[in-house]
């Protein structure tokens, strides 16, 4: 291959000039977004820190979480803290009194979402969380984590549709089973669903 010295440099200069000119009119060349003024559309699969889903209007009563602590156990960086509710007699209730996620530790790995048997914890897409308070503001409490199902549907429509369908089917099956059960043995109370989990 014959190679004239200096030709490679000229080719390089031509290439950068092409990019210079191209950056003004070829849309693929300038990928920069002027962030606070413009924003990229949030992808449907995007995930950033978990949230808790509740049905209905009341975040306290409608919370799907039953405090089974599976996510707390499986969370790789151990950033979830759950304390269960107790009633006056000290009996453990099926909902969390405290549900904290330390998002300064959380790495958005989504494992809590995958292991949750109740579809109670899902990934949020909120990413503008910068704050001046290093400790307090980065510890999300139950009230901050609780988000209505409609919010989840808006963030992840495809996934939420699947979950809703699954939950509806499960509820239907449960209702049918309960009706059957009811018909058979009215006295025997139904076993709590969460205790059947291994």
């Amino acid at each position, binding site marked *: 291959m014959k190679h004239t010295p200096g030709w490679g440099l000229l080719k390089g200069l031509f290439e950068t000039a092409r990019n210079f000119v191209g950056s003004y009119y070829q849309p693929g060349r300038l990928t920069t977004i002027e962030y606070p003024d413009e924003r990229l559309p949030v992808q449907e699969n995007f995930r950033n820190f978990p949230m808790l889903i509740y049905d209905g209007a009341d975040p306290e009563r409608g919370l799907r979480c039953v405090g089974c602590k599976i996510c707390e156990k499986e969370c790789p960086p151990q950033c979830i*803290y759950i304390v269960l509710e107790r009633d006056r007699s000290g009996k453990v209730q099926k909902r969390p009194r405290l549900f*904290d996620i*330390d998002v300064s530790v959380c790495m958005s790995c989504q494992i809590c979402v995958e292991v949750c048997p109740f579809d109670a914890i899902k990934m949020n897409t909120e990413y503008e969380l910068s704050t001046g308070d290093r*400790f307090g503001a980065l*510890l999300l409490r139950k009230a901050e984590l609780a988000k209505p199902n409609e919010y989840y549907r808006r963030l992840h429509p495809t996934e939420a549709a699947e979950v809703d369908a699954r939950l509806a089917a499960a509820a239907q099956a449960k209702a049918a089973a309960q009706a059957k059960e009811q018909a058979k043995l009215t006295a025997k109370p139904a076993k709590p669903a969460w205790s059947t989990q291994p």
Partner: protein
Amino acid sequence: MSDLRPAMETLERIRTRLEAAVAGAELEVVANGAVAAQGSLRVDAAHAVAVARFLRDDAQLQLDYCSNVTGVDWLDRVVRTTVRTRRVIDGLERELEQTTEHTVPGYLEAVYHLYSVALRHGPLVLRQRTADRADGARVASLTPVWRSAEFQEREVYDLFGVVFEGHPDLRRILMWDEFRDHPMRKDYVEPDDYEYEPTPHDEVLAKARRHYAGAGGDRA
């Protein structure tokens, strides 16, 4: 294509050939219970270098590439063996269960994964075991045979405390030079010298309180 390449000999055959080639080498084929069932070859430290050289230079093996070197810490294990014996007690023959406990002393292992670049086969897993987990934690360094073991043996030395005899430059590699312990050992206890920060986690707060009280500090 590479389907036609000769598969590596079985471990048993390699062992037989090695015993013939390296006089006095103590070799043992270690079974692997996993689905992979990739057995390994244990070699004693005294003959390790000679064995390694044979493995590298033998025409049928040509294990010229040492991919992975690592350590494994096996703690002291208490093994319970239950023996049923018949004994005559009070004129009656009775069956008795006798449980004896004995401690299998722990040891450290250095594991080498060998491949052949020339013949494209492998791996052959080579293991060396130390005598114990304290002063006798010594094995032979295979860095003179495979240069790739240099940093990895240093790492095993650093994190497990296995001394590789014959290593040209055995220093700590990941931890700092003044560090005393070997963090990858199973019985390693974290030093209580972190800079604790306010956290909702009670255990950490308790630890911090202990730590700063011990240090005479006033932070917590």
